[in-house]
């Protein structure tokens, strides 16, 4: 037999619901609105932030057309005394009203009150890479076909018209020669290959010898400092001297080879003409890459874009970090975050297990828990100072006195390094892991623990086989939070090992492969260095956005990995029925 409710049609039900809403005003409706509004504000801010960073960061690498701007003869805007300027139009905006003359502010043409910013390049010739021009003074904007934009090892980009290539053998290829373009392309590629080779020789082969020589020199200095030497020390000293000579002998052919390659980089010269008419020349070996920005189709632009992006991600920084790539910073951030996770996980989890599972719950444990929660709120710079005082000076200094006494007074571990930075951050994030782990442990159902104990398992076996696996997703959540906080932290790192430019990576092919005592670069500090410490802040701005984007992506990637692991664990160990 069917009940009345079964026979009711959907319309009936809807009507009834609607009716009740009309007749009786539901309580709490405004509160729903408020909560939704809170979420909307948060989401808007996040979308806005990401949008800003992405558009500014990605736009840096997109090759834009280079405009030839001609100024009106009857106005007095001039560039370097001429009426033409060549550059990429980067910004177009209203001028500051305080800069306007009365005529301009009353002018019927809106263009008179606007201005354009041009990226001019050629910092070596013009002294500045960016300049504003009043839009109303511009006669025409054209996009000449034969402009080359070249990224140089020094002085940033250059925008110019090519004139001719002067080869080592005295021959020259004029720019209007049809083979000029392919010729230049080949020479630039050859130079890039040689540069990579020089880099390899100097960084790895000579680097290895330098490292050993550095250590031997420290020994030598140590012997020199001693008032008198024992026989054994004397023979040691001789061995050091002998080894030193061997290394010098090894070093010489490599240095010669690098010098030879370097001299090849000096052979070919590109002569070019600036927009002012001035002719200048540049060694082809100085050009990192070049392209004709006004000849490119979409595919060509995409190719250039990919190339520039790749050089940015994989390259080493040049010219006070404002040019080149950020690979050492990415790598440093990554290695540091990993080391931090390795350090924070066992400590945090073990502490939480004791606190939740073994400690007798009482006043003392409550006090400890409050202290841990407060620790999470301590400003990070405080941890930096503690890291400097405790890890660097006390622990590192102690290690130096015990194991690296021959290198003293030059510190080995007694100065900032990636190990101390990781440990400092681990200390900073350990409360996050403890709190998350405790919550995860508490969420493991009592029934599972009792079932295990009833099976004759000890408390530790219960924790090891059932509680920890079931809590693993929650623990991973804690690690995600810790990593996100650690990877984005800058202030404490400045005290314990981050530098603006580190000569070597913390992890490389030289024995012992991982160099925990080395200083390292970090994306967060790199952003600070670019934005606030570089001589040309205008030029650094796009790099700041690009680096920020990379930092965000790196944190997202690390979180994503941890989240995937967590979901995998969650699927494995939990189900809706418990």
């Amino acid at each position, binding site marked *: 037999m069917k009940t009345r409710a079964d026979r009711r049609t959907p319309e009936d039900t809807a009507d009834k619901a609607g009716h009740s809403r009309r007749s009786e005003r539901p309580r709490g409706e405004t509160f729903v609105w408020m909560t939704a509004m809170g979420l909307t504000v948060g989401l808007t801010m996040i979308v806005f932030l990401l949008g800003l960073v992405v558009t500014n960061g990605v736009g840096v690498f997109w090759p834009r057309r280079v405009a030839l701007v001609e100024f009106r003869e009857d106005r007095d805007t001039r560039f370097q005394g001429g009426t033409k300027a060549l550059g990429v139009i980067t910004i177009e905006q209203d001028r500051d009203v305080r800069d306007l003359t009365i005529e301009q502010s009353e002018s019927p043409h809106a263009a008179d009150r606007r201005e354009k910013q041009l990226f001019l390049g050629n910092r070596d010739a013009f002294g500045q890479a960016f300049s504003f021009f009043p839009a109303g003074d511009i006669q025409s904007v054209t996009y000449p076909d034969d402009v080359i934009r070249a990224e140089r090892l020094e002085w940033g980009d250059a925008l110019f018209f090519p004139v001719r290539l002067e080869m080592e053998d005295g021959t020259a290829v004029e720019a209007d020669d049809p083979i000029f373009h392919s010729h230049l392309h080949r020479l630039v590629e050859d130079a890039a290959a040689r540069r990579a080779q020089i880099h390899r020789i100097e960084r790895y082969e000579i680097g290895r010898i330098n490292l050993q020589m550095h250590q031997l020199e420290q020994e030598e200095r140590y012997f020199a400092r001693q008032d008198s030497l024992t026989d054994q020390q004397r023979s040691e000293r001789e061995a050091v001297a002998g080894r030193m000579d061997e290394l010098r002998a090894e070093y010489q052919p490599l240095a010669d080879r690098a010098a030879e390659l370097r001299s090849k980089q000096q052979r070919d010269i590109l002569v070019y003409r600036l927009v002012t008419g001035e002719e200048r020349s540049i060694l082809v070996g100085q050009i990192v890459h070049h392209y004709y920005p006004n000849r490119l189709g979409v595919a060509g632009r995409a190719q250039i874009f990919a190339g520039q992006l790749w050089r940015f991600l994989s390259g080493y920084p040049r010219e006070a970090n404002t040019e080149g790539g950020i690979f050492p910073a990415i790598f440093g951030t990554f290695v540091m975050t990993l080391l931090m996770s390795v350090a924070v996980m066992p400590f945090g989890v073990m502490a939480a297990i004791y606190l939740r599972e073994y400690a*007798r*719950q009482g006043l003392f444990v409550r006090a400890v828990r409050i202290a841990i929660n407060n620790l999470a709120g301590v400003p990070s710079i405080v941890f930096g100072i503690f890291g400097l005082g405790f890890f660097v000076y006390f622990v590192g200094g102690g290690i130096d006195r015990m194991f690296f006494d021959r290198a003293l007074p030059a510190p080995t571990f007694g100065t900032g390094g990636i190990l101390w930075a990781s440990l400092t951050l681990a200390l900073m994030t350990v409360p996050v892991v403890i709190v998350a782990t405790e919550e995860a442990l508490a969420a493991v*159902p009592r*029934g*599972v*623990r*009792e*079932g*295990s*104990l*009833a*099976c*004759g*398992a*000890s408390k530790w*076996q219960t924790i090891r*086989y*059932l509680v920890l*696996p*079931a809590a693993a997703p929650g623990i991973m959540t804690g690690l995600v939070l810790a990593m996100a906080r650690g990877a984005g932290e800058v202030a404490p790192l400045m005290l314990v090992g981050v530098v603006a430019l580190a000569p070597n990576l913390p992890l490389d092919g030289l024995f012992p492969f991982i160099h925990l005592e080395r200083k390292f670069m970090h994306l967060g500090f790199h952003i600070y260095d670019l934005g606030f410490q570089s001589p040309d802040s205008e030029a650094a701005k796009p790099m700041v956005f690009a680096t920020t984007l990379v930092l965000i992506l790196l944190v997202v990637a690390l979180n994503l990995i941890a989240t995937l692991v967590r979901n995998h664990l969650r699927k*494995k*160990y*939990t*189900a*809706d*029925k*418990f």
Partner: protein
Amino acid sequence: MNDKRDSTFAASRGSGEIRQKRVQVGQRQKQTGNDAHARYIQVRDHSFFYGTTQVLYDLNMDIPERHVTALIGPSGCGKSTLLRNFNRMNDLIDGISHRGDILIDGRSIYDPYLEVISLRKRIGMVFQKSNPFPKSIYENIVYSLRVAGRNRRAELDETVERSLRAAALWDEVKDRLRETAFSLSGGQMQRLCIARAIANRPEILLMDEPCSALDPVATGKIEDLIHQLKEEYTIIIVTHNMQQAARVSDRTAFLYMGRLIEYNDTEKIFTNPTEEQTEAYVSGRFG
């Protein structure tokens, strides 16, 4: 009859060690007659406290071997507490204390030289809410063996089949032993928990309202199972369901406000109780 059951029991046992133990028990039984058998578990002047709150008052009862003993009584009467004292599960709670003693097979469970883990290995427990571990069906069963350090594959396989057959679950799950235990239905999960409890061949099986969350069909299956299991195990079951107590148990204890009101053969309790309170409770007039 009891002797006959004993001998078939000994023959059916696979493990030599346990057979030996059984023989010893049998021998002692011969010496002391049916007395030791009927007084397999002895509760002596047992009182129990949560902090300062007394929940059990001077209980005295003898629980016979290989029978089903039901503990009944209204909520809060202390029957679960008593059940959980047999394997000292209440040790997990802070601030507990006890008076008197509980002896199993002549030995006090509160003996300071007795390790609580070895006590629990001899006593299986099934909980009110089925609590399979977040592992495969197979790993759920062999858990008690693994924690005892027994990892031989052949032994584990044998245990899984024997336990699941004993719990009447083998035919339903034999093709998916590697699947997670959460893929089972509620009744199957509870039978899995029973299989897990008997995997390590305990002597006693404690059941804390094992059917309270199950439908009548699953309840029927579990009750049938209890009937079969008492051939091998001493079963103590806590239940709220009078019919169930009447159906499955041989002896019934009625507890009220932490005191043992009446303890007798089930038939007697339900048909002709001595105490007025018992009669009122089993006939549904209070509680």
